[in-house]
């Protein structure tokens, strides 16, 4: 028996994220490639310091990939002071390698990205707890309202009409 072809709409739905993801990657790569001739020291610094962000982006699976944003945000906050030092100091490739070899830059970059990971890992259980707390409160409020109705109208109120 020949297999039934999948519905047209479904195929389109599956194809769309893959296509848009490819476009984004191309765009990012093109911007980076354009920057390379003008700020190679910055690119070098960013490349080595933002490795955790790239790792987060590459390692996370599933539909909701938010790790690279959280890790990247904190990773970038660890890097940005050094970038400014580079931009407002000697903006050369030597200086960039010099900063990378210093260790402080990488410590900050990787340390902040570790905090990013920490936040990213801790946030879902916190939110789950919060949601559980609010739903419990809602259930309690509903049950209290039901109890009040029973007090006011008797057990008949719990019966369904008809």
């Amino acid at each position, binding site marked *: 028996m020949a297999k039934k072809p999948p519905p047209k709409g479904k195929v389109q739905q599956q194809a769309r994220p893959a296509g848009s993801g490819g476009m984004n990657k191309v765009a990012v790569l093109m911007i980076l490639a354009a920057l390379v001739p003008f700020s190679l020291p910055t690119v070098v610094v960013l490349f080595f310091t933002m490795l955790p962000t790239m790792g987060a982006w590459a390692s996370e699976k599933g539909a909701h990939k938010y790790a690279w944003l959280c890790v990247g945000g904190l990773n970038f*906050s660890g890097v940005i002071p050094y970038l400014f030092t580079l931009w*407002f100091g000697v903006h050369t490739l030597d200086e960039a390698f010099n900063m990378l070899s210093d260790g402080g830059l990488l410590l900050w970059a990787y340390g902040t990205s570790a905090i990013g990971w920490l936040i990213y890992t801790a946030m879902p259980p916190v939110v789950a707890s919060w949601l559980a707390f609010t739903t419990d409160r809602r259930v309690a409020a509903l049950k209290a309202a039901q109890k009040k109705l029973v007090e006011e109208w008797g057990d008949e*109120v719990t019966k369904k009409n008809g």
Partner: protein
Amino acid sequence: MAEAAEQADSGKPAAQSQPGVLRDRYTVRSNQPIAEFATPNAEAFVAEDKRDPNRQLFALICRPELPPRVNVMRALKGATTMGFVPLVEWGTMLWPPIGRQCMTVIYERPQGRKLMTNLRAEFKRIDEYDIPRRVVEPMVAAIKELTARGITHRSIRPTNMWFMDEGAERITLGDCVSQPPAFDQPLVFETVESGMANPVARGSGTFSDDLYSLGVTIIFMLLGRNPVAHLDEEQLLKQKIQQGSYNTLVGDERLPLPLVELLRGLLCDDPDQRWDIESLDLWLSGRRLSPLQSRMEKRAARGFPFNGKEYGNCRELAQAMAKNWELAIPPVLEGKLELWLRRAVEDAERAGVIAEQVRMALNSGNDKRAGVDLMLCKVLIILDPTAPIRYKGFNAMPDGFGSALAAVMAQKGDSRLMAEIILRGVPSLWFEARKSYLPDNSLMEGNFRELKGYLTQTAMGFGLERCLYEMNDSMPCQSQLLGEEYVVELKELLPALNAAAAKRSDAKTWPVDRHIAAFMGARARSDIDRNLVQLADPEPSRSLMAMLNLFAVFQYRLGPESLPALAAWVGSLVGPVVIAFHSRDKRKELEKEIPKIIRRGSVVELYNLLENTEARAKDEHEFNWAQAQYHAADEEVKRIQTESDERSVEAVRIGKQTAAVVGILIALITTTFVVIAKVW
């Protein structure tokens, strides 16, 4: 305990000798009976008028199980016609000897003697020349007065006649109200038709029945004795049928010609030919008419053999058949009666009608036995159309049916036969056989049709009890709930229930039973049948509200304003009505309000409080809303509890998004700070 019992025993005779008091004015001495004034069904006692102690009175205490003639009491009270013992007062009174309310009638005490002490006694005969002046004139005046008031006496007999004066000049008629019409009348004073009926079912009859009784009484007066004392009632009736009333009573006695004329006129067995008041007036004024000759029914060429005897005419045969109901059916069904009518009586018309009735009975559908009974009833009516309604041994004039039913029910007898008569429409067979139209007959026929309607409904307020009160205007309510109270009118019902409320033993008993409901239905001027039907509603709150509605309407219309005991009784039963409100707050409010109303004794207010349709609708509406709220909350709780997996997935997604936002924000803030620090 023993002491208390002793006291109770010693108190009982004391109570029995206590006097009764009627309308706070007439004292009836229960320890002073007067045998000579007693009637067969009412004891007589000395009575005193508190306002005029010298007035000579006596009281008759009616038997509670027999319906007295209240309509006649109303008509006769205060009548000053010469021909009656004056009826001074009547009403219900607590009669200590039996400890219950009894109908009491107060009469002026005649000064002279009773005309005849008993029917076997002999008394001083009245001279033939005195008869017109001393007897006929006052009696005609009395009967005229009765006719003018639309009533009949039906107790005219020498043992119920008195001389009002010591000189034995003024003859008057005694009591006629303490029992159903003609109930005490010996058969000799009754017409053939009335004599065939059961004594309790003779009915009020017409003035013609009174004139017949007067005729018989005149014969007694002329002879000074009972001319037929040697005959028992059955023989007497048979002889009246065979020979006619005049011949039976006068026999071989020689009477003066003017009186023969009078007596033949009064004792004529054909009610259409019997003398009326006008004929008596003519006779009194001296105009002589030719004496009526009795026209006896034609005798058959050969007798009809039935139950070991031979009967020579239809009336005689019908009477014998009515007395032997079961034996009468086979010869009729076998066609022997038809043949006899055709050949021996030579009455082909009646024979044909009977043959048709037999054929219909044999072809009747489901209930063949009922068909045969109705057929025999119809056959008896055909044989003797003027006879009473005769059905399975019960013989009643149509207007005597009510008192018969009252007596049967008061004596707790078997009333099934009476119910059967009404349900099967037996009276209509009798009415259909009338040769001439009489408005009273069509009115009675309509009433019987109405009764059939009531009888087909078995709910409270209908049935045989309703028939009882519909047929007897003066019947006191027979409910056990009323105890010893004597309730004849609707306005007396609530006060009686109020009095009975204090004595009730079972708190859950309703103040309405079949008798009270039927009594209310029959006595209420408006149509309350819809409310009576609701009394039987299976929903307790609805039936209770129907009862409250009835009581409230009667209290509002007839009073009294305060009935605390009855209000408490009804108030103790309103639980289901209060519970019918859903709101607990409303219930509490009602429970707080009801005792206040009970203290005021107002059933009307109680009804208004509970029958607040606006509050009830609001309660229902709000309850429905509350029910919807409850179930919506239930649904939501269930949804929350069943969607925990989805929620944890959602929590992870939101957590990740939140972390992402936090990361971006930190990056932005850091950048901003660094920019400011470097540029500043």
